[in-house]
C-alpha cells in the first residue's frame, strides 16, 4: 500500500489533488482512500490531506503516520508545519520550492528521506496565470512516485475540473501538470 500526505493551505486545492489521485487509481482498477485532515477548514489555514492506494481492498482506517510520500504545495509552510514527520529513509518529500533541494534539506534539518523540488508556483503562473499549484504538484509527485499512470491522472483532472473551470484553464492545468512532471529536481 502506498500512503501519501499532502500539505497546503485552505483554498489551494490540496484536498482536490488528494482526491484526483485516488479517483485516477480507480481508472486502473485499484483501491484507494482519500480524505482531508479532519477539522474545521478555513481559507489560508494550513491543512493536510491523505491518499492511500493499493491493488487490494484497503482495510486500515487509522491515520496516516508513516507516509511513503509527502507533497508540499505551499512553501510558506516551511518552518511552521512538521513537514518531515514520520518520514523514513525510503520516503519521498516533494516540495514546491524555487531553489535547490540541497538548500531546502538544510533548512528543513532533514535527516532521512529523499528530497525533490519543483518550481510549481512559477510553472502554474506561466500556464494558468494564477499560483494554483495542485495540478503541478500532482505532476511532480507522479514523476518520482509512479502510483498511477499520467494518463489516468490527466483524465481524472479533466473529469473533476470540467464544468468548474473554463475549458482553456483546463488545458492550462494539464500543461502545468506535464511541465512539473518534467521539471522536478532531485539532489
Amino acid at each position, binding site marked *: 500500500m502506498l500512503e501519501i500526505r499532502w500539505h497546503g493551505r485552505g483554498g489551494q486545492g490540496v484536498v482536490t489533488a488528494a*482526491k484526483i489521485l*485516488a*479517483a485516477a487509481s*480507480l481508472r486502473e482498477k485499484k*483501491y*484507494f*482512500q*482519500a*480524505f*482531508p485532515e*479532519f*477539522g*474545521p477548514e478555513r481559507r489560508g489555514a494550513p491543512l493536510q490531506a491523505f491518499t492511500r492506494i493499493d491493488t487490494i*481492498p484497503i*482495510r*486500515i*482506517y*487509522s*491515520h496516516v*503516520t508513516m507516509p511513503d510520500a509527502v507533497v508540499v504545495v505551499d512553501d510558506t509552510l516551511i518552518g511552521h508545519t512538521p513537514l518531515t514527520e514520520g518520514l523514513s529513509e525510503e520516503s519521498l518529500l516533494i516540495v514546491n520550492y524555487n531553489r535547490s533541494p540541497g538548500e531546502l534539506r538544510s533548512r528543513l534539518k532533514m535527516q532521512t528521506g529523499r528530497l525533490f523540488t519543483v518550481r510549481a508556483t512559477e510553472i502554474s503562473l506561466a500556464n494558468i496565470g494564477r499560483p494554483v499549484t495542485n495540478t503541478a504538484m500532482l505532476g511532480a509527485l507522479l514523476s518520482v512516485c509512479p502510483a498511477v499512470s499520467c494518463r489516468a491522472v490527466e483524465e481524472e483532472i479533466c473529469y473533476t475540473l470540467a464544468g468548474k473551470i473554463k475549458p482553456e484553464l483546463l488545458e492550462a492545468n494539464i500543461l502545468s501538470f506535464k511541465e512539473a512532471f518534467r521539471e522536478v529536481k532531485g539532489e
Partner: protein
Amino acid sequence: MRVVAETANGAVAEAMRQIEPHVVAAYPITPQTEVVEEFAGYVSDGRVRTRFVPVESEHSAMSICVGASAAGARVITATSSQGLAYMWEMLYIASGNRLPIVMALVNRALSAPINIHCDHSDSMGARDSGWIQIYCRDAQEVYDTFIQALPIAEHEDVRLPVMVCYDGFIVSHSLARIEMMTDERVRDFIGSYKAVYPLLDRDHPVIYGPLVLYDYYMEFKRQQAEAMNRALEVVFEIGKRFGKISGRSYGLVSSYRMEDADIALAALSSTARTAEVIADELRDQGIRAGVISPRLFRPFPAKALLQALGGIKVLGVLDRADSIGAGMAPLAADIGAALQSAGSNIRLYNRVYGLGGRDLTLSDLKSFFLSLERAGQGKEMPAHFGYLGVRED
C-alpha cells in the same frame, strides 16, 4: 452496475436519489452535511419528486418525519451528534407509532467539550429508543445497508424505524471505491411503498398517539418489543436477498478468520476493518486471532454472535462510547449478557477507545490484542475495563 469514487455521504445522497422517498426532512450538521446538501441539490434540479422540508431544527425534522410517515409517506432523514440528541424525544414517538422512517446517522461525539469527530455516543444514547440500529464498516456497506434499510423498516412483521450508522469523517468523508446499482434495480429491490393505516385514508380513520395508561400501555410496548425481535430474521433475509442482486451478501454479524480462532476482538464500524489487519499480522506470528463485528446492534443478535465466537477463549471488546459509571461500555455489556445467558466461559475484556475521533493506532490495537493472547495463556491478568489510547499521566 457502476464502480465509482465516492464518499459514504455522497453514496447515501445517491441512494436517496435512487430511492426517491416521498418526504425528506433534515437539518444539516457536521459530519452529515453533504448528505442533506447533495440531496437538496437533486430536489432543486428536479431529479427527484421528493418533498424536501428544510427545517429550523432536528426536533422539527423528526416531527415532520413522524407526521409524514403517519400520513402514509415513505420518509428519510439524516443527522449526527447534537442533532440526534435534539431529536431524542421524537425518536420514541416514531418507534412507538411503528413508523418505518429511515435515518442516516453519521456518528459524532456529543458536547461538552464540543467536538465534531467520530465516536458512537450519539447512537448509543438512542440504543433503547426502539429504533433498529445497523453499523457499517466501510462506504460500500453504507450504500448497501441504506438500500436494505427500507424493506427492513417497512416489512409487515417489523414496521419500525431504522438507523444506519457509520463513522463520521473516517468513513463519511473518505473517498472510496463503491459499486452502485442501477436505479431500476434499487427500485425493484425496495418495491413501491405500501402505506399501513395512513392518516390520509379518510374512509378508514385511525388514531396515532392516543393516551394509553396502565390499562394497555404495557401491551403496546410488548408488541413493539416483539416486532423488534422479529427484525432479526427480517434483517437476515433481506441481507441474503440483497446478495442475490448485488453479489454482496449480508448477515447479522460479520466475522473475520473466526473459524479456528483462540482470541478475538469485537468492534463496531470501521474499527472492525482495521482490526482485521492486525489479526492477519498475529496469524503470521502463529497466534490464532479473529475479528467479529455485530452489524446489527438493535435488535442485538445474541445467537448469531455466540455462533460466530465459536470456541474462542478470550474476547476483547472495543467500544467507541462509554456508559459512564456502568463499569462496562455498551457493546461489551450486551456481549457479556449474551455470554452469561448462554453459560459461556469466554473471558471478556473491555476497552473504550477513539472518543472524540482519537485515532486508534495500529500499535495500540496490536498491544491490546497481544495482552488478550497473554491472558489466554494465563501469563497476564489485564483489567476487565479501561480506556485505550488515552494519556494517563
